[in-house]
Each structure stands twice: as structure tokens, then as C-alpha cells.
């Protein structure tokens, strides 16, 4: 699997409130509507201009703050193909995987990518290619990869329960 897309670059500690404001957490339930508010309080241009398979590149601690899964859901439905960051906040990390949204943790690559450039990520090889070079990143743990491959935790759980029923 590989993804090629345009980069939207942001800094450190991009928190869940600027990704998906708390005032919408119980009033917006449709993922497509969530996507219209993605990154609303950080970059109002983003939701309007983001294209399918665009890539978010950010600094440390991406997704810190609330456990709200909509922070991952809104980015996924906005079309984001993958998020590359120096590090991720732990609940956001889980939420993204559980929504079937791939993540790449690679500090060195982040430092070498500029906003607006087009980059390619090859998940099998664990490689990220950008203008300034090719960077290696570690693969996700097998159990986590399984959830991602099934398209998220709900389809994954569905599959597991079906397998158990069949035995």
C-alpha cells in the first residue's frame, strides 16, 4: 500500500479542540459533516481546500487533549490519507488506527518536509519519499496493523466475532 499526496504542515501540540471543537462533540453525528469542521480553529482554509489523500505533517504530540474520536474521524472523512508526525498523543494514536487512518511517526522526515510539496509513503517498505530524500520509518506492531488493515476497529471486531462464531 502506498499513498501520494500534498502536504499540509503544522507545528507541535496540535490539540483535539482545534482539530474538532468541543462545542460540536454531541451535536454533529454525521462524519461528512464532521469533516466540514476539520482543523477549524487552527486553519480555516483546510476543510475547504483539502483533497482526497492529502497528507498532514506535524510536529510533536499531534492530537493531544480530549479522547474525542471525532478528531480522527473528521480528518479521515475530510480525505486525509495519512498523518506524519514527530510523535502522537496516545489516545489520538488509538483513535486514528481505530478509524482506519494510517499514522507514520518519523521525526527526521518531518524536519525535511515543506508545506505544499507532494510526498509518497510506502507502507510495505516503511519508506517516506519527499523532495529532500527518502526516510525510513518503523512499521506498526502486528496487532495494531491488523485493525488498520480491516478498515478500523468496528469492522475488525465484527470480523473477530464472526470468526469465533464459525469455530
Amino acid at each position, binding site marked *: 500500500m502506498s499513498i501520494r499526496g500534498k502536504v499540509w504542515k503544522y507545528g507541535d501540540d496540535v490539540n483535539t479542540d482545534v482539530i474538532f471543537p468541543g462545542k460540536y462533540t*454531541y451535536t454533529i453525528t454525521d462524519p461528512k459533516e464532521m469533516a466540514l469542521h476539520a482543523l477549524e480553529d487552527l486553519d480555516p482554509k483546510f476543510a475547504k481546500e483539502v483533497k482526497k489523500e492529502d497528507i498532514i505533517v506535524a510536529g510533536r504530540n499531534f492530537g493531544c487533549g480530549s479522547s474525542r474520536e471525532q478528531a480522527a474521524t473528521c480528518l479521515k472523512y475530510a480525505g486525509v490519507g495519512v498523518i506524519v508526525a514527530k510523535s502522537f498523543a496516545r489516545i489520538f494514536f488509538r483513535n486514528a488506527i481505530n478509524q482506519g487512518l494510517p499514522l507514520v511517526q518519523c521525526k527526521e522526515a518531518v524536519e525535511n518536509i515543506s508545506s505544499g510539496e507532494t510526498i509518497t509513503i510506502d507502507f510495505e517498505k516503511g519508506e517516506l519519499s519527499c523532495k529532500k530524500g527518502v526516510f525510513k520509518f518503523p512499521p506498526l506492531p502486528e496487532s495494531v496493523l491488523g485493525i488498520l488493515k480491516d478498515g478500523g476497529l*468496528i469492522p475488525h471486531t465484527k470480523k473477530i466475532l464472526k470468526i469465533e462464531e464459525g469455530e
Partner: protein
Amino acid sequence: MGKTFAEKILALKSGKKSVVTGEIVTVSPDIVMSHDNTAAIAKKFKQIGIDKVKHPEKIVIPLDHCVPAATEKYAANHKEIREFVQEQKIENFYDINTGVCHQILPEKGHVLPGSLILGADSHTTTYGAFGVFSTGIGRSEVASIWATDEIWLRVPETIKINIEGTIPSGVYPKDIILHIIGDLGADGVLYKAVEFGGKVVREMSISGRMTLCNMAVEMGAKIGYVEPDEKTIQWLAPRTNKKYEIIKSDTDAKFEKIIDYNISKLEPQVACPHTVDNVKPVLEVVGTRIDQALIGTCTNGRIEDLKIVSEILRGKKISKGVRLLVFPASMEVFAQAMELGILQELVKSGAVIMNPGCGPCLGAHEGALAPGEVCLSTANRNFKGRMGCKEAEVYLASPATVAVSSLYGEITDVRGDLK
């Protein structure tokens, strides 16, 4: 080599003899908490394709994030939750007259030392104050646990934070944790288990320990933990008759790091907009005008907090132009504050007493901010847009600092009024 609390409890809950740091284990939690997000979780649960939750007795659902419902949409959300709770025969449901989840889970006896609690809320770390492994998870994960009684967790490395010295006058547990977050940064202990220890923590009330563990997540921690002691046992005694086992790190456990703080000279602290780790001594921002002062939330809405506030406000009026909102963290706290005459005094000072719940902390209702406004709050987060408006500013401080600042209409050093 000894084991840490995190290693011991995750071995126990995954049915293994022992586990090592970095290992991914499948565990079965003792309690799964969700709140106003339960209706959304129920929808995901139904997508899995099964009808009944596996262990209704493990599920605890308090309504707290927007109570009573602010609009028709919120009302419909609550209605769906009540229907789901009935359908699934979930007994541990707490309606809008109970309080904030992180206060009422301990109060109602759901938090037992040595247990594993997962919640669809990032501040689930609060229960670590009782020697629990507790952390936040997402909505899909709660739905999946309802269906399977299982979830994967990575065994975290542990960082020990020792807090030594003597707490100076005007300084409270909130100032201590703000100072630590400011020092270590918003990702200072990312993915790590954090054990709070040392003389100051041993002497600290359960309420103060809850404040520490509540905010551990603001520096990225997976869990906060305080070793249970006689105080913990006493606090829990009237609230549960269930048996529990206290789990502690071995004396020769391997910590990734040990960080020592001496707080004898610590001054009152404040987290400035728009990040929790933007912490300064109050003295540096003294004089900053405030429009709203908020006391409450899962961080600082307990009876100990309200007592401090009432001592500062007693017989005085808040500044004209300041709106002081007080949210007791639970009905139990509300009733206690009423019996002690605290609410009466606060009302006389000009406070608006609100119902137990999250209030405007997440910007949903009951005191959202307008552009250009400033709120000084005892809550745990001050991100841009947090209180409903991205052109507003939120500062975070102790209940004492918020109370004294409401008297002067500007951020004020409480030590001047205590002397």
C-alpha cells in the same frame, strides 16, 4: 528485578505470569465508563452486529457533559442513552442529578484499588489517585469492549515523580501539578505511567491526589498513580464493601526515570493561553483583567476546594463585571456545601451556583465565552476555542487563585489576601 505497578497490574489483567515494558497485551477491564458520548458509542456497538453487551455490570454511565440538556439535540442524545441503558439492563447509570463522571465513579464505589478502568474520556486518569490503572480510550474501543470484554494495551514505562518539601501558604495541589506540567511540557511523559510519590503526596488529601492524577494526561501520561494508603482505605470505607487488592511497585522496580521536585519555595502558578504547559508564576500575570471566573470541574470541584473558596470570599463581594460560576463536582459535594453553609456565603458574595456537571469546560453550555473575553478557571484545559470561542482566552489556576481574582476582577496573587 522488581516490577512496577503498571507491569504487575497488566500481567494480572491479561492473565499472564509477568509482562515486560513495551509488550502489547490483551486485557479485560473491570469497569468501562462512558458519559454523554454513550449514544454515539451505542451506534458503533450496533454496527458490530450483536444485540447485547457482554458484561452490563462492568458498564458505568454518568450523564455530565451537557446537563441538563442545552438544546433539542442534546436532549435527544440523552434520551437515546436512557433508552439504551434500559434496553441493555445497565444498572450503573447516573442521570443528570449526580455529577461529573470522575467525581462520582469514586463516590459511588466503582473505583477500587488494584482495578483496571477504561473510560471514553481523557481525564479517566483521575482514578489513579486510588491506586487504579485507569486511562482514556476512544468511542470505537468502548463499543468493542462492550462486545468482546477485551482491548489491547501496551505496557508503559514508568516515571516516578517525587514531590518533597513543605507546601507554602497559598500553594495547593493544582499549583504543584501546573508547575510540573510547565516544567516537563505537554508531551513530557508521553505514553508513560506516572507514579506520584514523596512526602507531599503522602500528606496530601485524596482530593489533592485526584487533582494530580486528573492532570497527568495534560503532560501526555497514560496513567497517573498514587500508592494507596490508610487515607485511601478510609475514604473508600463508607463507599464500598467490595474486596480489593492494593498493588504497588516493588521497592526494586525499574523506573525509566525518577524526577524530584522540592516545592517548599513554589509560588502560586497559572497556565496561560492557549496551552496547559504555558505555565508561569501568578506574579508574572498579576493584573490581567478577567470577565469570568470558574470554580469546579473534575479537576477542582470538590468540597475541599469549595471550603478554600468560601474562606477567601467570606463577607466580601466579587468585583463588578466579573461573573463567578461555581460548579460543585457532584450532588454529594453540593449537599455537603449546602449543609456547611458554603453555598449561602458564595451566593452572598455574588457567585452563581450551578448544577453539578462539566459546565462550560468543553464549551458546550452554561457559561461559554464571547470574543475578547478572558476566563480564569480551575479546569484542566485552556486550548484555543475550549470554552466555545476561539477569540477568547482561558487561564488555569487553583481554586484559591480563582476566588481571590474574582474579588479584584484581575488575576491576583492569593498570598496577599491570606496574610
